[in-house]
């Protein structure tokens, strides 16, 4: 039997597993999470009195369907939760599970690794109380917890409005929503956004409901600083008319769209190509997620497309595996699914314009602001290194010299900003300064995995421990 491994048990991974099991295969499904669902469809932990479907609103139906699908197939797959896939070497995936090392040999691998928040260094963004926007939602869905009591939602993302609505429903005070993209830019993106009119109107509905509830919404702001000493106490911003405003708060959720987790794809030998709209490097794949070398990508880890697109691309990638391994495919209308993906991705490209990555903010970023949270490397240190004689002309060299991107997160939260700063300082196009190469292990591993091999000694979460 064809041995297929799927990495990720979010909507893309679950859809892929569904197609494969329906055709008689029994894939290995590796997931770092405790329970299936990924970030978007995180389940409340057992015993939590949270009405997740009420919280999810319009997304509840997809949530329910995704989890029902998983429940139906879980006995036909080799499901490995709390397992970190940390490297791919030829046709072998390296993982740790319960603190012990494991390898999985495969004939084909579907990478449905998802995404994290795209972030931007801002003065004070390392203060306690500043969390990513996606993280704020995850905390609410899984633990029924709010990141604080009086919260500013800021950045540029359609999720600002959804998250604020959810937080408000759960009792948080929404101090304000600060969106860095001007309203005019949003209006200009309407054409592409009409590719998914239902989602578009729903988004406008969230905005209107928040306004009716008296929540202040500012478009076209420049985020100046998150102020505070022991933790965040206020957000300072410049409003679109030019005045400086300070809003007291005890927590901040910040996000600028998503950043695909492409590290495993890169280690598997997939070519990454620069994408002009997202200003990111993305795995190069055909319309079905085929990357060559028996590697397939699906979901937001391939190209940000949202949960619906993730499920469809998971289906297409699994179908491509079946086709490539000469297994007869039934019940999948590929042409229709491809049209659906194209439409949803057009919508996401519209979103990427309507909620733009404000890289120009980096031009005025103060030298003392930390760009690399892990290693504590400031914008000034990066600029000084870049301006020095014989200074680096691409980001991997910059990393070698400054340690920016060398910490435990492996550049997940600083690499984009470091690349933009490099391009700006050297007056080069962004694609000319390269991207930080992925390195195994893609996340920290416990030192004792092979020696000890039990969870108690190797880190209590079982998936990782400090390097």
């Amino acid at each position, binding site marked *: 039997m064809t041995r297929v491994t799927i990495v990720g048990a979010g909507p893309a991974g679950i859809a892929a597993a569904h197609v494969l099991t329906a055709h008689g295969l029994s894939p290995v499904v590796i997931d*770092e999470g*405790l329970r299936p669902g990924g*970030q978007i469809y995180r389940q409340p*932990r*057992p*015993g*939590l*009195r*949270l009405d997740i479907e009420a919280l999810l609103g319009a997304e509840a139906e997809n949530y329910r369907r995704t989890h029902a699908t998983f429940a139906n197939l879980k006995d036909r797959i080799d499901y490995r939760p709390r397992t970190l896939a940390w490297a791919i070497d030829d046709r072998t995936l390296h993982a740790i599970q319960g603190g012990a090392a494991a390898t999985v040999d495969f004939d084909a691998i579907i990478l449905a690794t998802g995404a*994290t*928040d795209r972030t931007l260094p801002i003065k004070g963004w*390392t*203060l*306690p*109380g*500043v*969390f*990513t926007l*996606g*993280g*704020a939602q*995850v*905390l*609410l869905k*899984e*633990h*029924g*917890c*709010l*990141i*604080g*009591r009086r919260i500013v939602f800021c950045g540029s993302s359609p999720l600002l409005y959804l998250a604020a609505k959810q937080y408000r429903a*759960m*009792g*948080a005070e929404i101090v304000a929503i600060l969106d860095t993209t001007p309203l005019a830019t949003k209006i200009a993106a309407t054409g592409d956004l009409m590719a998914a009119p239902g989602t578009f109107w729903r988004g406008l509905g969230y905005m209107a409901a928040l306004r009716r509830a008296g929540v202040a919404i500012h478009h076209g702001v420049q985020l100046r600083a998150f102020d505070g000493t*022991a*933790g965040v106490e206020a957000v300072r911003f410049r409003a679109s008319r030019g005045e400086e405003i300070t809003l007291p708060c*005890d*927590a901040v959720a910040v996000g600028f769209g998503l950043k695909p*987790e492409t590290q495993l794809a890169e280690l598997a030998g997939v070519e990454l190509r620069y994408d002009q709209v997202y200003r990111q490097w993305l795995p190069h794949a055909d319309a079905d997620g085929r990357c060559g070398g028996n590697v397939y990508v699906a979901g937001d880890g391939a190209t940000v497309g949202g949960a619906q697109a993730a499920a469809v691309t998971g289906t297409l990638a699994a179908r491509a595996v079946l086709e490539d391994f000469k297994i007869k495919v039934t019940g999948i209308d590929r042409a229709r699914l491809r049209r659906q993906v194209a439409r949803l991705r057009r919508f996401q490209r519209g979103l990427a314009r309507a909620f733009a990555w404000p890289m120009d903010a980096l031009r005025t970023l103060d030298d003392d602001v*930390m760009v690399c*949270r*892990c*290693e*504590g490397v400031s914008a000034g240190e990066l600029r000084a290194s870049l301006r020095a004689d014989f200074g680096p002309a691409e980001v991997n060299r910059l990393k070698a010299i400054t340690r920016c991107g060398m*910490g*435990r*997160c492996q550049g*997940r*939260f600083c690499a984009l900003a470091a690349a933009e700063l490099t391009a700006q300082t050297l007056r080069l196009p962004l694609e000319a300064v390269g991207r930080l190469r992925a390195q195994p292990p893609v*996340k*920290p591993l416990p030192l004792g995995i092979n020696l000890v091999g039990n969870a108690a000694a190797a*880190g*209590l*979460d079982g*998936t*990782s*421990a*400090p390097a």
Partner: protein
Amino acid sequence: MNGRLMRAVVSDGAPLRILVDGVEVQAYTGDSLLVAVLAARNALRRHEFSNEMRAGFCLMGACQDCWVWLADGQRVRACTTVVAEGMHVVIAGVPGFPLP
């Protein structure tokens, strides 16, 4: 001391106790270590290369900002670690193993 996070709904999970710098903190079965500590405290750790306090950031196992020391010398990622009775988080530092 007031915690940073606010529990918006009740948990049916059995209450359990952990220690933070030797002081008892109430948690619930099913909490992540991050939730358990930050429901009662302001931060999780001191950053190695500055004097800053950190309290996590991405909350989904990617940024690695929420690593904490346990009193037995282990370090664990608080947002993906399930809390267990008697866990002892050391924010102030382990005796004989000074933090910067």
